[in-house]
């Protein structure tokens, strides 16, 4: 079983990479391979159980998009055939059509998701999020310069907070075949033990978590905190 981290030299913000390392703590037989910007991604041609790409800088968005562009068609085929691919934070935008910014030139995405991001570099959005995925409660955080406007299946239903377009009415993230992309940042799988268990099962692994009791304790506390009526999702 193998997980491929794409471009850890730039797609490494906010502790996002710990998602993959946590999976390895849960499933010690999971091999982690790191693919840098100058190397060919393995998953289009090799057997990779999970591909992961995390939050990055604005410079990193362009570098990552350029590095993946030659493999666009292969990636589309793979994810449509069920290749597990988790993108967190603004890595989602690399997979969309384009990123428009008020402080930089437009960055062309891969066009795998029918959406377009719009960044306002002096207006950072910070919020917490409660959502539903299958029968699970999802908790997480957003810290972004913008939102994404487009069509396509959402990954999570929004219960509290905002979805992918910055409104409470929209769903959060995108799902296309095995591709799961969400604007939620950080150690999403550590913060959401039920989701982590689900993913481990999808990967064909045993779903026992590392430090499961402590992780569940933290998760339950956060979920109840987020759902308190007086608590505002917006920072």
């Amino acid at each position, binding site marked *: 079983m193998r997980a491929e981290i794409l471009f850890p030299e730039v797609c490494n913000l906010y502790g996002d990479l710990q998602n993959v390392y946590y999976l390895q703590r849960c499933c010690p037989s999971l091999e982690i391979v790191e693919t840098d910007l100058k190397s060919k991604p393995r998953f289009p041609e090799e057997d990779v159980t999970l591909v992961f790409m995390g939050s990055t800088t604005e410079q990193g968005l362009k570098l990552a998009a350029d590095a993946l562009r030659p493999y666009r068609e292969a990636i589309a085929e793979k994810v449509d055939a069920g290749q597990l691919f988790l993108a967190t934070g603004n890595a989602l935008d690399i997979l969309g059509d384009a990123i428009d910014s008020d402080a930089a030139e437009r960055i062309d995405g891969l066009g795998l998701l029918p959406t377009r991001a719009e960044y306002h570099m002096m207006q950072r959005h*910070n919020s*917490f999020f409660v959502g539903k995925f299958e029968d699970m409660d999802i908790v997480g955080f957003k810290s972004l310069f913008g939102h994404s406007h487009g069509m396509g299946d959402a990954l999570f239903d929004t219960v509290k907070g905002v979805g992918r377009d910055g409104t409470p009415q929209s769903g959060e993230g995108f799902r296309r075949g095995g591709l799961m992309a969400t604007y939620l940042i*950080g150690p999403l799988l550590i913060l959401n033990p039920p989701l982590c268990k689900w993913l481990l099962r999808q990967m064909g692994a045993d779903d026992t978590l*590392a430090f499961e009791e402590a992780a569940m304790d933290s998760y339950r506390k956060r979920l109840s905190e987020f759902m308190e009526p007086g608590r505002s999702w917006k920072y």
Partner: protein
Amino acid sequence: MGKLRFLLALWLGKLSIPALKITRHNGTDFPGSLAVRVCPDFLKYVGKPPVMVAVTGTNGKTTVSNMLVDILEAEGHHVLSNRAGSNITSGVSTAFIRNCDLLGRVKRCDMAVLEIDERSAPKIYPYVRPNYILITNLFRDSIMRNAHPGYIADILSRNLPRESKLILNADDLISCGVAEENDRCYFGIGRMPGDVTDCVNLLNDMRICPRCAGKLRYDYRRYHHIGHAVCESCGFHSPEADYLAEQVDLQARTMVVREKNGVQHPYDLITDSLFNIYNMMAVIAALRQLGLSHDTIRQRFAGTKILESRLSEESIGGVNVIMQMSKDKNALACSRNFDYIRSKPGRKELLVMMNCMGVSKNWSENPSWMYDTDFEFLNHDDIVQLVCAGPRARDYKLRLLLAGIPEEKIFLEDDEFKALDKLYLTPGDDVYILYGVDGTPLAFRVKARLKELLLAKGGQAQ
């Protein structure tokens, strides 16, 4: 019209000062805040001293600013500073209001040392154009406010006045890339025995060349991306320091500072922590730029202390109680502190309460920064106990477990005061209280309670 509005803003700001004193709100940013509300370009019109130094950067700017002010004042300068207030527009404006006459002309002060928040650059530098801008370093800071260091570097590059000379950390390639057209000089610390080449930290934000995106190789690395790097593809490399610390001896607390002419100048260290030696070097570089001699700087350092609210210790009943500010939401600052704690000899008990109290009631702190932080450094035989307390206690417990710390060393207690009951308080131990910025008042109340407990046990404070 602009000038009239400025005068109105100034007078209102000045009038508010005695009003605040009467109501015992002295020291707030209200005068500046009021003035900027009345006159948004207040800073454009207010008088400035002939020489201005701005200090900015992720970590160390308060320490560096305070040291600069102390030394310059000891040298007889009248220094305008915002040390009593905040480092954003309102705090800077308040400092000017307090030091100008009724027409807005600067009184007495021949210099200004201003600590300036990085994100406030677009609002301050159009009007305040320092002769020197010192950038201590650029690291990851608050995820919510500062995103990532490249973002902050970009804000600074867009807003620093072209004529300001930059004083930069040669060992930090992120801040070295700021405003590349500005005149600049560098400070740094030369290769040290404990340096490594591979990164041992979770945060490593300078892995690729800023010119060609090729892989960077580090000749030596102190921590994170701090060190001397070379691009394997295009040859780009870290700059050479104009003021370089060499022969740093943490035990003897000495170093020498070598300038580019090769002459070495001995100094006594006022600290044994590396990040504070960088702060010392930043101060030395700035003072040398201002024309002070090494002899003068060395003598003045002898009377300088690191701000006590950040690091202080007191021996009570045989237990050494250490208050260590570890800025919550700042992975770098916490990692540096953890590295420092593990380097100290002796048994340690830790009260982990770096919670962001400001958001604990109405929002909820994002714990992502904990996963950028080297909690692994606390997995050390000498660290015998870690008591997690406060709103994020469960997150800390989980993070400590993932750092490999044995569960039997970890204790959980929501209430910070009750957490004291879980501490071993073994005579001879160092007890660290780790707290965040807005948790400072709470941390000192907790320390006071701890002191009561220890004194009740029959100890004496020293």
